[in-house]
């Protein structure tokens, strides 16, 4: 099964490469993965605010956000970058915070679901999500919205293939995928999607 995990990692790395939703490391600054116990103070820029945290370097950003800073909108779903519920932005790029060691964040700005509405693409996506009435249980939707906002931040008018590439790392167990796709298109185009039950323009 471990080979399967490895293959999946490649699978999602490939998605990231295509959509720009890459993992934390960038080619310019190869990052040292810190060892457990390498604990120090990190100053994180989160949603435009500076937060100092005293945590182990290998602690995933997800748990820093949730259990140290108290931003609960970013969700735990799998812990192995399989479901995307924990998606946040690092300098506008979608990353899975459940596997992102806080020690690798550095000076890059972190945006979470609580702050993404302040970005143009995040605002458009959240509005479209409401208009299309996407959510069901809603637990995965923080991550879905973050992935969609990152996509629109990079591709103004995504094709279906672009949407597949950017969104296939986000599982929705309620399977709201049909409306997620419609909402992304609406957010991109500004044009109300033709939905079967909600007339365009209905409030």
């Amino acid at each position, binding site marked *: *099964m471990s080979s*399967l*995990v490895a293959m*999946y990692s490649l*699978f999602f790395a*490939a*998605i990231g490469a295509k959509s720009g939703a890459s993992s934390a490391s960038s080619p310019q600054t190869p990052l040292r993965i810190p060892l*457990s116990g390498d*604990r120090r103070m990190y100053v994180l820029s989160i949603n435009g605010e500076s937060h100092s945290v005293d*945590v*182990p370097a290998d602690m995933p950003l997800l*748990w820093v956000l*949730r*259990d*140290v800073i*108290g931003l*609960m*909108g970013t*969700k*735990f*779903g*799998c*812990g*192995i970058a*399989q*479901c995307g519920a924990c998606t946040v932005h690092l300098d506008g790029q979608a990353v899975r915070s459940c596997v992102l060691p806080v020690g690798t964040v550095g000076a890059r700005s972190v945006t*979470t*679901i*609580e702050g993404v*509405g302040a970005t143009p693409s995040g605002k458009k996506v*959240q509005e479209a*999500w*409401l208009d299309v*009435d*996407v*959510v*069901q*249980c*809603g*637990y995965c939707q923080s991550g879905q*919205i973050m992935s969609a906002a990152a996509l629109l931040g990079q591709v103004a008018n995504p094709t279906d*293939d672009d949407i*597949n590439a950017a*969104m*296939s*790392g*986000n*599982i929705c*167990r*309620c*399977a*709201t*995928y*049909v*409306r997620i*796709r419609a909402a992304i298109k609406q957010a991109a185009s500004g044009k109300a999607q033709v*939905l*079967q*039950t*909600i007339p365009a323009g209905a409030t």
Partner: protein
Amino acid sequence: VNAPAVDLQRRRAIKVGGLSLAFVWLGAGGRAQAFINARPQSGDAAAASADGNPAFAPNAFIRVDAVGPVRLVMPNVEMGQGIYTGACAMLAEELGVGMDQIKVEHAPPNQALYGIPLLGEQATGGSTSTRDHWTVLREAGAVARTMLVTAAASRWRVDAAGCTVERGVVVHAASGRKLAFGALAKAAGALPIPPKVALKDPSTFTLIGKPLRRIDSPDKVVGATQFGIDAKVPGMKIATVKACPTRGGKLVSVDDARARAVPGFVEVVKIGNAVAVVGEHFWAAKQGLDALGIEWDLGENAQLTTAMLTEALAERSRNGATILGRQLGRKPDEGKTVEALYQLPLLAHAPMEPLNATVHVTPDRCEIWVGTQVPVRCVSAAARITGLPESKIIVHNHYIGGGFGRRLETDSVEQAVLLAKQVKYPLKVIWTREEDIRHDLVRPMYYDRISALLAKDGRPLWYSDHITSGTVLARWLPEGMSKEGLDDDVIECAAETPYAIPNCHVDWVRHDMPRGLHIGWWRGVGPTHNLFVIESFMDELAHAAGKDPVEYRRSLLANNPRALAVLNLAAEKIGWGPGSLPPRVGRGVALGSPFGSHICLIVETQVTPQGEVRLRRAVVAIDCGIVINPSSAEAQMQGGVLFGLSTALYSAITLKNGAVEQSNFHDYRNLRMNEVPTLEVYRVESKEAPGGLGELGTAIAAPALGNAIFAATGVRVRSLPIDRSQLVENADALGSVVADSGHGHQHGPENV
């Protein structure tokens, strides 16, 4: 099939069509003394008082304060199915407020105030909520509206008949006077409860039947919704837990030397079959847990495998004692025999929100923060474990990040209470996804032998379904078993089909799983199992008769206009009929009438030469009676069908050495965005009472897909999940490149 009037005088099972849990428990020996009611009940005043002591609380659902939005208390839990929006629409329609003028609250545990007659307790499941509350919630709104109007009319000294209500304001048009609900609340609260109220004529509905956006979305899209896992309690610490990998095993010893070195480690807490590490944060707890040296007593199931379970089921199917489910007529002496064996696997629920509970046990009380489908069961369990009286157990329910039946169980809450009572601080216990997959109360396996006799013209004269499985009901609600020992859920949608088939024999062999391997409710319950068998087999019969599958079903529906209408609508919308589809592309139809609704799904799928199944298109037609919120009905079909297709394609829980082999979303897979077909939902307008929706789409998905695969390949799908190795076109196909994949990474690398 509509729910008949409920007889509240005695305990009995009622038939409401496609419902597994239709029991009424009242009177002598019943589980509850009262159920939800539009008017006050004993205990209502106390509940209202505890809920901010509103100026006007005519029943358990409506709180009108002097200022602020009207507060509506939701008798069911919201786990994605949209019931908060639906329940609010029913209350608000009659009360006379806008959906933007209300605030919702989770109901506290209170069987008498929020117990649901169809389930016999305060629970959310079985697609029962709207069916059960359709009348009572409208009436609750009407009671409140009537009293507010009476209060206004009395103050103005005018005839109440001359007053109207609009958006939370009582208006007397003749004199131009107006008063908001808040200003009338105190006076309304002093009035007697009206014995009779008039409900609106459906033609005057302004909310019910209109597409409404969900009331819980605004918080959910900004990450502000509080799920159980988001509870913040001062002084709280976080634990994660590992239970014995084998079912029925025990904890022997723990070496925590390495764990103690983990930054943020707090302590190790043990219970009989599990160990938890407490940390200052989840990461410390997880690192600590991974660093433990744990010795387990693997127990009696240490050798158990799925093959052993299957063999035992097969053996019991051949030799076990049968319990009759339904006998109609007799087996004819002549006819063409068609027979088949169908098998369904164990399934996990895997809701997106991992199981969790936050518990604070003090000497005189126990407080629990959790998202649960069964709040009263949580109270009873915590009382049993702590020895505290039930009045000292406080459960704060939450929005639920996916239930699918998993949160009808209290095992994780019980475990959290057992752990928390050993520490002094509030303890939040979060299961990892691995723990969730490996320690689910899995959907039962089924082993069904089905056969039929066909007349010369292909019509079915008789069918027999010989079902072998465990039973969830016998553990979950033992009183629900019939006196003959039948679990009605097991035969639901097998004993009764939409079709005119003159003779049948449906029976069940009960085969309990090994001790420790608990089985649980899973989205769609009995119908998800039986519709796969019956509707796949109907396709086999059509094929054996040399008939078109839609035409074959149609010919058996002359006396079932509602089922016929959804079949016809789906067939029309997808353009069923002769025509050319590309090679290895096929369409499959399935029809069923579970949960008091009717549904037809037609799936169009392509099967690649390598055996890869590509979903191209799906068309759903439903008749769910009166629809409360068409947008929500559509959403439940979109999500429910995809949930079922995902399961049919990918899902099985298997055992090896007594332990579950799967662990996370890489090996307990889910449909992803790139695999989703075009999906259309159509509805037949109906004035019948509302039917259930939450499980409808899931229950019908697998047979439609299986039948589509048969149409595409000639390979009949008789067991789930779909075995793609059986769908390979020929030996050369596997060696060839997937030239037509188009979408690159479409199906994940393990398939190419």
